[in-house]
């Protein structure tokens, strides 16, 4: 392991002075009573309560942006009691939205454009809307033109509807959001592609999924997750919710083996059990300059060193972490062995396993013109406190959660931390940090 002081590439040293997240609920589960705005508001207000720092800007990542809260970051900031003079904006990079918010905030600070920034991610996949077919919109437009009178437009409205069978069938924003329109593949199908590319068996995937549950359960029982979690009282019953809902301590290979593949019913290997869960949750961090935090006496949770985003084949979007991590580590002259803890988001276990393989593979690097491999993280480094398979993957939140979790992990295991995830549409994001 190299010395721990790696200079930030330029500008100010960015540190995390506070962070908090909700326990993650399954879709239509414990957090169903809170929409994305409410989730975000509660977490941001909690963040303001646990730190004396007041933000100059708010940046929040969110994927399924609610129609009633355009620029959800601003709505959340105002509802949480952030001064109205403080600007807020929402960022979207699919599964990396929460990470994008963190790196954007860090960029504001590094370049001296803000001193304290509240950043984070929020997602309520429960409340993903159902959409009307586009032909209904068209018909309604004709209807309006008729203005309630017997007008030719009225007949055109009806004719239009009758010509589009199934116009009444709602479209699921969630399902369509998880489909890459450029290659016409569902995220699960891209995972299936990786499984066949890398020859990853169903058993290997299930094994990894089981390990995720067991590790998450062990971390929770050891109280390791308490530091990042806030209790929630969820309407309508306001019962206490303070534990991630998706972790199954009793998960077993036998139970996992029973599940049928979802995306390729006959030949597939990707099941609900070895994929991330659809969930609700929010996480927020407070970022500032190191000298400011030290002057104010705010405790340091972690330091953001650097980050990279990279693009790749959209049909194999699961390999995104390979490209982004490779760029990030090799730019700093580091290898995976220099990193104490690695979080690769478990969108699909097959995708994490494929990343592990690709990161170590010289042939893969040659094929993609990447130079020397930085190496793959071993089991003792990777997702030690469990991952999205067990905990859940509220898409907009996850990036922020990985960074928050790493901060706490690095308190236990000092050194460098790497948080990386794959991004629908063929991208990868990676953030390098260390304990404060």
């Amino acid at each position, binding site marked *: 392991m190299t010395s721990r002081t790696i200079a930030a590439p330029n500008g100010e040293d960015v540190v995390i002075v506070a962070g908090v997240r909700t326990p993650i609920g399954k879709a239509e589960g414990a957090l169903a009573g809170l929409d994305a705005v*409410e989730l975000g*508001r*509660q977490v941001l*207000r*909690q963040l*303001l*309560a*646990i730190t*004396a720092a007041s933000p100059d800007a708010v940046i929040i990542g969110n994927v399924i942006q609610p129609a009633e809260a355009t620029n959800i970051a601003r709505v959340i900031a105002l*509802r949480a*009691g952030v001064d109205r003079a403080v600007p807020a904006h929402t960022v979207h990079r699919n599964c990396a939205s929460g990470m994008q918010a963190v790196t954007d905030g860090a960029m504001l600070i590094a370049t001296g454009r803000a001193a304290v920034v509240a950043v984070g991610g929020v997602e309520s996949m429960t409340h993903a809307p159902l959409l009307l077919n586009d032909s209904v919109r068209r018909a309604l437009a004709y209807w309006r033109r008729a203005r309630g009178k017997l007008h030719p437009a009225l007949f055109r409205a009806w004719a239009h509807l009758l010509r589009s069978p199934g116009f009444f069938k709602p479209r699921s924003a969630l399902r369509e959001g998880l489909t890459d329109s450029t290659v016409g593949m569902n995220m699960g199908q891209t995972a299936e592609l990786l499984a066949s590319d890398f020859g990853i068996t169903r058993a290997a995937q299930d094994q990894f999924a089981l390990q995720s549950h067991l590790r998450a359960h062990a971390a929770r029982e050891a109280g390791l997750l308490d530091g990042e979690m806030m*209790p929630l*009282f969820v*309407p*309508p*019953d*306001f*019962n*206490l919710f*303070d534990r991630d809902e998706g972790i199954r301590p009793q998960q077993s290979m036998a139970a996992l083996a029973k599940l049928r593949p979802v995306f390729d019913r006959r030949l597939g290997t990707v099941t609900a059990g070895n994929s991330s869960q659809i969930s609700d949750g929010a996480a927020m961090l407070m970022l500032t300059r190191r000298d400011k935090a030290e002057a104010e006496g705010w405790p340091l949770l972690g330091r953001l060193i650097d980050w990279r985003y990279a693009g790749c084949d959209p049909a194999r979007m699961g390999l995104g972490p390979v490209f982004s991590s490779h760029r990030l580590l090799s730019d700093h002259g580091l290898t995976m062995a220099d990193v104490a803890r690695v979080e690769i988001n478990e969108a699909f276990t097959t995708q994490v396993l494929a990343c592990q393989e690709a990161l170590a593979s010289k042939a893969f690097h040659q094929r993609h013109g990447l130079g020397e491999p930085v190496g793959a993280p071993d089991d003792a480094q990777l997702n030690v406190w469990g991952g999205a398979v067990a905990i859940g993957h509220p898409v907009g939140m996850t990036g922020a959660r990985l960074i928050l979790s790493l901060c706490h992990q690095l308190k236990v295991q000092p050194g460098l931390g790497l948080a990386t995830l794959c991004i629908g549409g063929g991208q990868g994001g990676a953030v390098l940090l260390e304990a404060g």
Partner: protein
Amino acid sequence: MMTVQLLRDDGWARLRFDRSDKPVNLLDGATMASLSMLLDQLEADPPAVLVVESGNPNCFIAGADVAAIAAVTDADTAAALAQQGQSICHRLQQLSSISIAVVSGSCMGGGLELALACDRILTVERASTKLALPEVKIGIHPGFGGCVRLPGRVGWPRAVRMIASGASCDAKRAMRISLADLCCRSGQEQAAISCLTHQGKRLSTATTPWWFALWPARRLFFHLANRKLRQRFPHLDLEASYPALPALLGLLQEIYGMSEGLALAREAESLGKLAYSDSSKHLIRAFFLGNGLKKHTAPAAAGDSHCAVYGAGVMGHGIAWVASRSGSVDLHEVAAEPLAHALSALANFDRTGGSRLAKIRPTLCDDGLHRAGVVIEAVLESLEVKQALWQRIEHLVAEDALLLSNTSALAISDQQQGLAHPERLAGLHFFNPAPKMPLVEVIAGKHTSPETIERVKQLAVRWGKFPVVVADSPGFLVNRCLMPLMAAAFRLLEAGQTAAHIDGALKCYGMPMGALELADTVGLDICHHVGKQLSDAFGARMAIPDWFAGMVGDGLLGKKGTLGFYNWGGKQPVVNPAVCAYWAATPAVDHEFDANLADGSKAMAADQVVLACLLPMLIEALRCLEEKVVADADQLDAAMIYGIGYPAFRGGLLHDFAHHHRLDDLRQQMRVFGLDGSDLLVGLAAC
């Protein structure tokens, strides 16, 4: 003194109310006189457009002069007063000019009636813009033609509801219910006036639903309104206690379809009868007493908009709700379960669709204190617990944060011990249920600074409460006066009176709750605790009988445990027959009272029950006055009305007894009930 002036500018005239000697515009004698004079001028030379406005953006006209109504001594004077107002409104209405009332700020009672006489009403959006006919709250009904003209604007059913409830509406709502013709933002008045000018004189518009014209439907409507009214006061004789309410409904029913002149005459006549009734005088007194408490001098402190409340019990979450009125609140509690209960209860209060509840953040630790300007505790009633809390959080809060204790019996001075800044700790005692009861007791400890007290009063007023400053003595004021009432009720129980009879008698007298129902609501364990502390301090007159401890010991806790003197399990509380066993064992001759009390074979007369309960409270109140627990008799009366709901139509405890009972009779009664302290009764003479 300037009250109203007429500004003319070719074809235009402005009738501007701008009171130079008072903060609000009132339709008092002087204003009416000059208004009448100005109307002479206007009638002689009517302008094309007449704008009726106020020089004060936060007050159009706050109403008629309440003091003048209170001073009325006979029905004819009162009716004449109404006729004077009616004639001015009538003359305004008859002017050939297009008259436009520009309502910005509060427009109450007579003010709204004047505006209704104009052709058009324009409301200006402001937080202070409120339109209402609140006369029923002071025991009368509108008398300047409001009963006649409001139905013509908003339709009969809505007008009846508006006048009978005295509820106000804001600028936007006024336009929605077509009370106002237009609503504009401040600064747009001129454009709005010219817009309204183009609409010309008012033509009658039908806003009353068609069914109201049918006699049976109308009859049914008034019948239901009457029944609803009586359900609000199930135990009271409305004709004696709040005569304005039935009289109003009767009047409205009568004047439907009547010609305007006749209707106005009936209105004036009916008002005349009400204005000199005792009920009205007393309600006006209660109104003035409440206003007196709301006076304060301190400006709002910046940090006061964020408040931390400790303890999420019934009081704690009630206080959190009150505090959320003017800022964000952190609700601290040690365990999750009471917090979940509290949030459920708060969600039931919330009629805003969650936006007010969203201001309350539940938390299980001491986080967020650095942002709090005010910390209120409603934790366990134990000095050790409270002291430990203050010492723990004193250094977590800002230097200038207020520390307030919602204790019902623990001395504030004791809580100040060991604090680095005791001067910022004071008592702020709410009454249950905190969101509903308007009174709060403000208590200064030995080290509390005067600035702190002023700030607390200011805070309480901002939360819509009436603060009364009381001395740091056991039970403060209200609980100390309540305890003898409860003790008296317990003695009556022992003497063989039933719980239903005692409570019924008190409720028929006008108390919102009977003594035993109140004990159940407060919680019998808390009653016992407070009673013990007070009897330690003041002796036997506060003593709670031994059997009471037995009830608490057996887990009868009152409403919160569903069983107490009543069974609260069902929809309506019913007397819990099992509790009789507790005092049946006590020999009734334990008290060497008069046979009248000890004879349980027959029920006492209701007025005797009331006197037996209220006299001990009266004596304690007089004692408090003598010991300077409260500044004066008026504040004491206000505390009784707004803290325990002493019937407002009786004008307050001391006022009631001083004016409606003879001292000798009271002395005689006290002898009958075996009460001491009759020498204190002379204090009543000064009230």
